[in-house]
């Protein structure tokens, strides 16, 4: 347990809030965007290219006084499936868990089908995640499947 504590100090410790750790460095900005942290009024600290024994380089985000609902936080599993979540109250870890790929995603992934209504009208996208391992998203509108390699973010 001593190792992680020292690492947290690199991006200063928080009294209350959420730490999202083990994010691929390249996905940190995307996670910030998905969670709309750029609009947050609370203090947001983040680091990229931090040393990690497991991942080589990793990213971390700490959000003060913010606690996420599973439906909100699990959205990031599509870009950061390895991310872990630590909930802190009074400097103490009260919950630790991994993010999970949700059954349903809305609003932040583009449908790959150029003829889909979501690419022509002002319609927020909606997908059912029909394969959580390969990541295959079934469009609620055009009924086409967007595969992991074709995922683009809005």
């Amino acid at each position, binding site marked *: 347990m001593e190792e992680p504590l020292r690492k947290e100090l690199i991006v200063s410790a928080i009294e209350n809030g959420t730490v999202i750790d083990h994010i691929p460095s390249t996905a940190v900005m995307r996670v910030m965007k998905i969670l709309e942290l750029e609009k947050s009024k609370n203090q947001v600290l983040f680091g990229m290219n931090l040393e990690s024994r497991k991942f080589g380089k990793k990213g971390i985000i700490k959000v003060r006084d913010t606690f996420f609902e599973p439906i909100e936080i699990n959205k990031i599993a599509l870009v950061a499936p390895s991310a872990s979540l630590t909930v802190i109250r009074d400097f103490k870890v009260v919950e630790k868990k991994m993010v999970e790929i949700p059954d349903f995603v809305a609003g932040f992934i583009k449908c790959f*089908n150029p*003829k889909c*209504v979501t690419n*022509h*009208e*002002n319609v927020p996208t909606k997908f059912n995640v029909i394969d959580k391992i390969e990541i295959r998203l079934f469009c*609620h509108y*055009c*009924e086409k499947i967007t595969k992991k390699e074709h995922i683009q973010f809005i």
Partner: protein
Amino acid sequence: MKNRSLVSINDFSKEEYLKILDLASEFEKQPVQNILEGNVVATLFFEPSTRTRLSFESAVNRLGGRVIGFTDASSSSTSKGESLKDTIKTVANYSDLIVMRHPIEGSAKWASEVSSVPIINAGDGANQHPTQCLLDLYTIRQTQGRLDNLHIAFVGDLKYGRTVHSNVIALTQFDNITFHLVSPDELKLPSAVKMHIKKKNLNYYQYTDLKEVIPHLDVLYMTRIQRERFSDPIEYERVKNSYVLNNDMLDGSKDNLKILHPLPRVNEINEDVDSNPKAYYFEQALNGVFVRQAILASILGKK
């Protein structure tokens, strides 16, 4: 189905399809019924499809309802840049139900989410055309007396053909259907559709030759093959005539065989087939009116 939209064939259960088919056979016996008197149905054709539009309008007229609408988007406010949402919300004020055809996939689903009246999808690009699928099921049941234990061939462009995909998926809900899939190698049924067949433990066979399959069939469903679908135009020239049905090819076919086609045909069924009693594509088109009457009446709560 009262007040529900009909957007995708995948939104409905087998029991719901069968209810529509039963109701359609009532309209087949008694096509003129004044049950939609006072109702206004809007037909919004953002791309032209004369056949489908006339079939819907005929259905409404035979039920005593009135029709408003437009037949191509260039004459509507869409050409002035109005969003689909605004068009639908406006027309919903003037009508009790909207029938729409649109080139963009998923447009009917979106319309059903913003409309205050039910939507019937009359085709959204390459995606869905559920009333065509229901009229095909109706025709198969009408000619064979059942929707199970049948050998059915789909011929032509099985890769891009929306009608074929919907029909195959709908038919997998019935017992012991055997699918015979006849197409050029380049235009085989997509594996996502074949998955539906496998999931139900039904059998399918793939062929590149039409002749060899005919003697086994109860239903022969022909579709068009378009030149644009081929990456190599020489390949198109080479195969195009292998998927043209003529009357001689029907020698040795089963007595109960019926030939279907969603129409319009180009040249994939030779005209010498038309006088064969096994040709059933024009009757199939007439069934479209009964099935659409059934759908309109049940969504508007009149049956």
